[in-house]
């Protein structure tokens, strides 16, 4: 199990190293034309150029960091909100549980993508808006899991005994709850990173991200919308690389999350 996690971590690390080189040391800018239109991959442009003459490898490298930034920020926001609200709901119960439970069910029941499109269109195109929108639709499932776990822990005898000895909520939180909930949060954080990267790509593909940013979703969008791309060879170096990177990154994150989950539940 640990071995498999290591393999996926190694792939992610390798991607991070390659794209760090592309972002920091590669001689071409990801946001300025540095070659001719649609140059084939060569020693100068390792993955060729797009129609505006911008280097594909430089764009993918930047896209990796944008995707990771969006994924981590979203996961941070969603897991913090989901964790806090889930614990509050499960531990306090009563009206708090009712109100938080209502919002959990509300956010879980609405169709996410159409609502995200509407909100994205309303607030305008920016990476920050994308982070907020995706977080908004990611916290509820985490809160639901954390709430259930909190309820389970709360009913344990050692918690009841601690409470009878006058243990405060803060004491129980730091000594019992966090310890038992953090593996769950870790699994969900990884899952949210992967989900956020895909959702950002979807929103960017639909034109709801910063139109001149170099995210993978936007790269795929531009390549797919290039007139007649399927009748040329351009898709090989323009469409395929961001697509493969997107799939590989999210697959690794998903698999790491699954393996950790299996380890915990064993």
């Amino acid at each position, binding site marked *: 199990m640990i071995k498999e996690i290591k393999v996926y971590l190694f792939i992610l690390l390798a991607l991070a190293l390659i794209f760090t080189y592309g972002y920091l040391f590669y001689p071409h800018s990801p946001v300025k034309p540095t070659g001719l239109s649609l140059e084939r991959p060569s020693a100068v442009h390792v993955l060729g150029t797009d129609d505006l003459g911008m280097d594909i490898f430089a764009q993918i490298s930047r896209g990796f960091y944008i995707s990771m930034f969006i994924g981590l920020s979203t996961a941070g926001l969603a897991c913090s909100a989901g964790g806090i609200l889930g614990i509050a709901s499960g531990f306090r119960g009563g009206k708090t549980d009712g109100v938080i439970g209502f919002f959990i069910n509300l956010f879980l029941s609405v169709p996410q993508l159409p609502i995200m499109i509407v909100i994205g269109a309303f607030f305008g195109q920016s990476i920050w808006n994308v982070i907020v929108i995706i977080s908004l639709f990611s916290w509820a499932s985490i809160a639901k899991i954390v709430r259930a776990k909190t309820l389970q822990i709360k009913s344990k005898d050692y918690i009841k005994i601690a409470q009878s000895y006058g243990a405060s909520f803060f004491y129980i939180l730091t000594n019992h709850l966090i310890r038992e909930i953090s593996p769950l949060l870790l699994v969900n954080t990884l899952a949210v990173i992967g989900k956020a990267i895909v959702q950002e790509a979807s929103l960017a593909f639909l034109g709801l991200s910063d139109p*001149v940013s170099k995210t993978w979703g936007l790269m795929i969008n531009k390549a797919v919308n290039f*007139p007649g791309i399927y009748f040329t060879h351009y898709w090989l170096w323009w469409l395929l690389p961001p697509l493969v990177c997107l799939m590989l990154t999210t697959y690794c994150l998903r698999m790491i999350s699954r393996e950790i989950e299996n380890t915990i539940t064993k």
Partner: protein
Amino acid sequence: MRKRKLILILLLLSFIFLTFTACSGQGPSDVTQIGNQSEGYRLETLKLAGGTDWGMPNPYLHDPRGPGTAKMKLVFDSLLEADPSGDIPWLAKEWSIEGNTYTFIINEKAKFHDGERVSTEDIAFTIDYYKKYPPVTNYLASAQGNIVKDYEIIDDTTIKITVYEPLANTLVQLGSFAVLPKHIWEKVEDPYTFTGPEALIGSGPYRFGAYDSATGSYEFIAFEDYYGPKPVTARLLFVPVSHPVLAFENGEIDLADVPADLLDKYRSDPSVGILGKDNDFGYKMLINMERHPVFKDVELRKAIYHALDREGIVEKVFRGEGSVASAGYVPVTSLFYNERVEKYDYNPSLAAGLLKDKKISVSLLTGNSGNDVKVAELIKINLEEAGVKVNVVAVDSKVRDEKIFAGEYDFALVGNGGWGRLPDYLRTMYSSKSKFTGTNPHYMGPLGYDNAKITGLAERQLRELDFNKRKELLEELQYEISKEVPIIVIANQTSYVMFRKDYYDGWVKTYDYQQFEQNRLSYVEK
């Protein structure tokens, strides 16, 4: 037990049958039954790429841009039409001009789609109705209000229209407005909300069939009693397609734009015909000088020209199919183009020298379709190199048009077709006396700019009835515009369409308009 099984099988079969029949009735083509009308027409169906909502095809509800107007003109006729050589009879079979008076004799066989005859009463009613309720594209509008002073109905087919002032484009204006059926619209008090079936009854070559705003689908049906040239197809469809070239290859549409990279592939195919629209599409950048008075300084406007690698835009975005736009606006391939216009080459150091110290920061409003964002991105890169900070704001093209109309922009990038038209459009863009009042930003000029000499020339060319003298005035106007550069004219694109020669090849451009698929003549027998 056996009987029960039999009933179950029968129920299952009827369910499958109902499912299939229900599914087959969902396409726009089945919204209206047309029976055997395909008989007698050259084609049963002619299909074009749809997918965009261009509004309901009536004079009050269509989108102001070319494709919206074109669909309305299939249903609603006008007095005249244009072919490659000039104006031709249409609803009016004859016309004459005497001083301020234009006499039209309309075709006595003309009928509306509900069977009522078209009479001069309808023409007169339409003129009055448009004065009261201006349509989306108001051909009769003038800076003073309306070009029509008075009219006189001589009989059922003859009407004399008197204008305030006979101008070079008066005949085209009088010949272009869509004629409304009086018996329907006289009861309508708010045409902007009138959407019943009667709102789509005109006297054009095609009847309205179906329209779905969500999918941008349209269906038009040949009008069997049409007085003019016979429609070529029983049904004309605009269907949503995700990829026009693939759709053309699969026979889903009969006309498609050819991407520049595929021109050689299709040119070598003898079954495919290709037609070009020389520099008919173009991009320009409007400057809001009310928000940024610093650009009232002509040297700074010229510096923007020098900052832009417009050749690069043609090469990269248009894939070499086009040309750097003339600073006098009229494309280099136009009959009216003036070779003497000022030219501004790409000179980033000169631009930076003028712009860097000004610390200018602007937003660049653009559409989010076609090549809009790509052009905006290259402009942003160039301007930032020259020291102007640019934030690209990409929105739906309709939202962009509305924002431009409301003056809510710093810089606005506008891409549109129709640059090959007779350049009277310079007047609404550059003259302070004839500012465009519609919502199509194609005809809008900069905000906060006024130049007496340009206004004078733009107005004089309209009053010059001699073609050669008018051409000279238009050339002089371009020269002045190129010296003043109130608008940054970016680049013109030559686009191409392809069609199957053995299926239908009757695509026509007029002397004034190169968009084959938007010309009414393309859909009737020649």
